[in-house]
């Protein structure tokens, strides 16, 4: 048999990831389920780095593992619920298990038809992808191919992705936000059970976070700006910026952060990021190119045609970073404070 195309270590990671996934779902206590889910996501990042997908691993570590675990924990904190053991509805669980097994078998029926794991000649790696690898330098002078394809070749996808983040923020705002003053929606105000202990305001945690936050923010700006050369870009940088402010929310209390970032400022800047991205596209339209065709911006930007794309990508990444940062902060504050923007985690 030819040299086994399999990475021995990855099979080990994959098995452990499945174990983590299953335990995360079968755990009784919700909080521990959230923590195991966080561990599951971090292990997933490890697997993706081993497979060479560094940008995706970076995003998963920042967005998937970091922020979504914080969201789940904030929801659990606010509702203070833990999964009370209930009589299992065996009939329905079996039916659902049968459906899952049937779909799984149907999916596996296509197994022999798949290319082996990791062979460079598979149809995916031999049709459109070679164009990207060979022409990124010629087109946009950007070494990090992932950033070019993300912001330039398939820039429309990323605009829609930023719109998705923006919609998530407004959707959560309109679902949970209740300014109790003038809302007529009949919503019994079940205040979450007071937590077992009063939140700490110990000095050590505040000092530590006060030291860490500025460095986090500088590193995040570096990640956004340096997305052309090293793994990183708008999303990852934006999330780290958001995470630094969330760290402040946790170590100090919500009012401290809300004094600096008021609710209005957060929501406005979330919308502004999407506007920047769309405006760059519209500018290309007015300058004669197709939508999001940065070559059209050449007269405005320094350097030759390819460098116009280089700077176009940078502008777009900044727009993405702004939206992602403020929508992460917005989502966290609304989830943590159950929509009342007063006290929170």
């Amino acid at each position: 048999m030819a040299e086994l195309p399999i990475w021995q270590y990855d099979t080990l990671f994959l098995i452990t990831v499945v174990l983590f996934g299953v335990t995360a779902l079968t755990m009784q206590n919700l909080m521990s389920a959230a923590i195991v889910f966080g561990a599951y996501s971090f292990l997933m990042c490890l697997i993706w780095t081993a497979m060479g997908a560094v940008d995706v691993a970076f995003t998963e570590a920042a967005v998937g593992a970091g922020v979504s675990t914080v969201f789940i924990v904030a929801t659990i904190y606010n509702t203070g619920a833990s999964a009370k053991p209930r009589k299992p509805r065996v009939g329905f669980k079996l039916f659902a298990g049968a459906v899952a097994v049937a779909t799984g078998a149907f999916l596996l029926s296509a197994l022999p038809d798949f290319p082996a794991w990791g062979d460079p000649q598979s149809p995916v790696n031999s049709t459109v992808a070679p164009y990207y690898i060979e022409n990124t330098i010629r087109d946009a002078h950007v070494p990090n191919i992932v950033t070019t394809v993300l912001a330039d070749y398939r820039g429309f996808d990323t605009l829609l992705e930023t719109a998705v983040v923006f919609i998530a923020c407004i959707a959560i705002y309109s679902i949970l936000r209740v300014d109790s003053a003038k809302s007529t929606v009949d919503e019994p105000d079940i205040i979450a059970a007071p937590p077992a202990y009063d939140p700490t305001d110990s000095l050590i945690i505040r000092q530590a976070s006060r030291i860490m936050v500025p460095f986090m923010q500088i590193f995040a700006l570096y990640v956004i700006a340096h997305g052309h050369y090293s793994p990183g870009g708008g999303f990852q940088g934006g999330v780290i910026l958001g995470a630094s402010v969330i760290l402040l929310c946790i170590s100090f209390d919500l009012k401290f952060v809300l004094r600096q970032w008021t609710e209005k400022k957060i929501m406005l800047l979330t919308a502004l990021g999407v506007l920047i991205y769309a405006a760059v596209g519209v500018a290309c339209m007015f300058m004669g190119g197709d939508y999001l065709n940065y070559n059209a911006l050449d007269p405005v930007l320094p350097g030759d045609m390819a460098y116009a794309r280089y700077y176009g990508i940078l502008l777009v990444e900044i727009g993405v970073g702004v939206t992602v940062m403020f929508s992460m902060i917005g989502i966290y504050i609304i989830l943590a404070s159950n929509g009342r923007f007063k006290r929170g985690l």
Partner: protein
Amino acid sequence: MEYIAYILIVVGLVFFLGTSIGLLRFPDFYTRMHAAGKGDTLSTVLILAGCIFAVASQGEMSWLIGLKILLIINFVFIGSPTATHAMMDAGERAGAKPWKKKGGDK
């Protein structure tokens, strides 16, 4: 250079082993937290130091990568002891009582 890296990483792993055994064996909250805290900070720092030496011998830009790893070590030193402290503090407020020798409550 290579051998220093191997030694450091192995020592780091030994500490991790100690942490996991500690987590399983120790009777109550505080001692388990102590083991977790130690393993978390020390073994990570040792492994990272091993990485610095492992990277030091490749290419002429490696000192920059070494510097970046030093930064990471610095953050781990600030970050994880605070985390352990926070958990200890929360545990103490939540009323976890330390374990006493003569068969105190588990």
